[in-house]
């Protein structure tokens, strides 16, 4: 995150925070309001200038820090994200929708024929794009915070890093590392449960394995994944079927490039080749 990388002028006085919503469930912006112990302190540090869900008073841009939730799914939102970028000094995407297209990016994989064969009441009333895309497909993004939903403590870390002009400490390693830190018994090794942990970005604190459940990848891919190898071992060692593998690659971060590529490869009749 390089706070002065944009042509947008720094505002005088308290720095201005904006929170923007695109196609999403509101859960990531809610994470900000879920910071019950820190919210008022944050409001003391920054001016919450634009946050439709929380306030009926909006301050005009430019904004020093824009948090963007949601993916781009309409022509209107394609234009709107350009406007958001133009008035934001630093733009951070929060969550799987803004960072990877979200669950609604499942449409990107759909068989068009199958969808159109269904009878609709009034298809002409709805305007939507064929794909759901991350914010980075449209504008430059300064930092991406992964997760469905994001971890509120990481969100505070990102905001704090911005305020102190330092890089955010958000580790890019895997959920496996978090499991080791937490002292979880490995659900794959001990119980033979398929787990996405080896390829999934840290941040949740290895929640699912802590609850005797395999990770389902809601934080999206970590850096340098070997997803093909994971799928190979899921099949060979755990007997996972193709449907389970594709379902786990193709959920909340379906359009993240490494997951999308591997799920398409797994779907081919010749499987892993």
């Amino acid at each position: 995150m390089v706070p002065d990388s944009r042509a947008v002028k720094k505002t005088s006085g308290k720095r201005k925070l904006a929170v923007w919503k695109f196609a999403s469930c509101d859960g990531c912006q809610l994470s900000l309001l879920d910071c019950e112990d820190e919210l008022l302190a944050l409001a003391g540090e920054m001016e919450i200038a634009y946050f439709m869900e929380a306030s009926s008073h909006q301050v005009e841009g430019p904004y020093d820090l824009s948090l963007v939730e949601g993916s781009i799914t309409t022509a209107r939102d394609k234009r709107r994200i350009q406007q958001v970028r133009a008035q934001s000094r630093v733009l951070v995407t929060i969550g799987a929708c803004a960072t990877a297209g979200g669950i609604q990016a499942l449409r990107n994989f759909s068989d068009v024929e199958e969808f159109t064969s269904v009878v609709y009441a009034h298809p002409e009333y709805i305007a939507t794009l064929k794909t759901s895309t991350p914010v980075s497909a449209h504008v430059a993004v300064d930092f991406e915070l992964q997760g469905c939903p994001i971890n509120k403590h990481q969100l505070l870390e990102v905001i704090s890093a911005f305020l102190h002009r330092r890089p955010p400490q958000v580790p890019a390693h895997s959920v496996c590392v978090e499991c080791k830190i937490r002292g979880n018994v490995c659900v794959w090794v001990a119980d033979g449960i398929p787990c996405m942990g080896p390829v999934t970005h840290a941040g949740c604190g290895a929640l699912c394995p802590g609850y005797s459940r395999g990770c389902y990848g809601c934080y999206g891919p970590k850096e340098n994944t070997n997803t093909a190898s994971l799928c190979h071992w899921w099949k060979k060692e755990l007997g996972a079927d193709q449907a389970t593998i594709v379902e786990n690659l193709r959920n909340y971060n379906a359009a993240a490039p490494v997951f999308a590529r591997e799920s398409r490869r797994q779907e081919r009749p010749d499987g892993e080749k």
Partner: protein
Amino acid sequence: MAKSKTIKVDYLARVEGEGALYIRYDDGGVRDVKLKIFEPPRFFEGFMRGRDYLEAPDITARICGICPVAYQMSALHAMEHALGLTPTAELRDLRRLIYCGEWIESHALHIFMLHAPDFLGYDNAVAMAKDHPAIVQDGLEIKKAGNAIVSLIGGREVHPINVRVGGFYRVPTVEELGPLREQLLKARDMAVQTAHWAASLTFPRFERPATDPYEFVALSHPREYPMNEGRIVSTRGLNIPVEEYETHFREEHIDYSNALHSVLVERGAYLVGPMARYNLNYEHLSPLVQQTAEVIGFPPFCANPFQSIVVRSLEVLYAFDEALRIIDSYRRPEQPYLATDPRESSGCAATEAPRGLLYHRYDINDRGKITDARIVAPTSQNQKSIEDDLRHLLPKFLDLPENRLQARCEQAIRNYDPCISCSTHFLQLHLEHDEGRGGAGI
């Protein structure tokens, strides 16, 4: 001819999701009211097809970050209905416990951060905190306690990971519930104070005319305040099992909204949510809640939607009381979940989301893949009532200056705590071309 005026709000603040308001009126009354929902649809019912039945609670949770537990509960009850499973009493209690957590956090968010600023004349809770620090701080503590329940039982506040068809992936130990109990005891005292404070607010005088009363619709259970189970009843005599929901309720698609409008086939508009639950189930509220209602002088039937903030505060108090009852009688289930074995079947369920009745139906095949899904969210069901309220309300407040009239209309919408993110996700995708128009239907 009277000159026509309009109230236009392009983007409603302090509601969840993206909606707009358009009202055209003149001296003769209101000519047109549109609650326009422009939040982009996300087509959950479309892409649920082909997914595994065990994924339904996790996927549908993503419809709404404010009330994910409600989606998880309706989804897993529908799946268990399809598979003929009945959860044990202990598992049933744990589900009620996590639901209490969500009611608390969702209601607290609305009471203190979205709705209270309307009554006290602020733009947001942060501004309100400068003059009313104790209220906002108590509100945050209450919300935090609700989130603590969801986090402990579900793993995290937003999109919990521990809810499973058949039960839970892991059930908490008695010891783990100990610290939570202490936190809830303190927060329950604050909830009593909140009810007193909410009742002391000044409410705009508003009731529906006798010719167009509300029809309140909620679940009703013989022994308890409804959350996960019950028959669907109304104040105008409806009394049906959940299986008959689709015979009595219908969704209409209208041109100005990305959400479907739900109507009762026989009578049209109806209202779900805290007021409906309260009015239809007052006798099942705990003694503490009933006593508190009496002390603050709040009647067992509430017909002024501006007072829904009091009803929410009483439901928060109930949820604390109920959560403590469950914790005090908790015995750890022997098995975290009942074994599930998919077969070709169909099932439905309705539960009480914080904002009201939430209906799910699924068809699954013999491999456990979903072949059809139908979801009706509370806000889809309330849209018509919200518009009707505005129609009745505006003529009563025409003496207000225009900016205050507009604010009053926005407050009337917030009475319902509308969740627009929820309401738009029930349309299936119809693809044409890149920049083109998609489609919708049931």
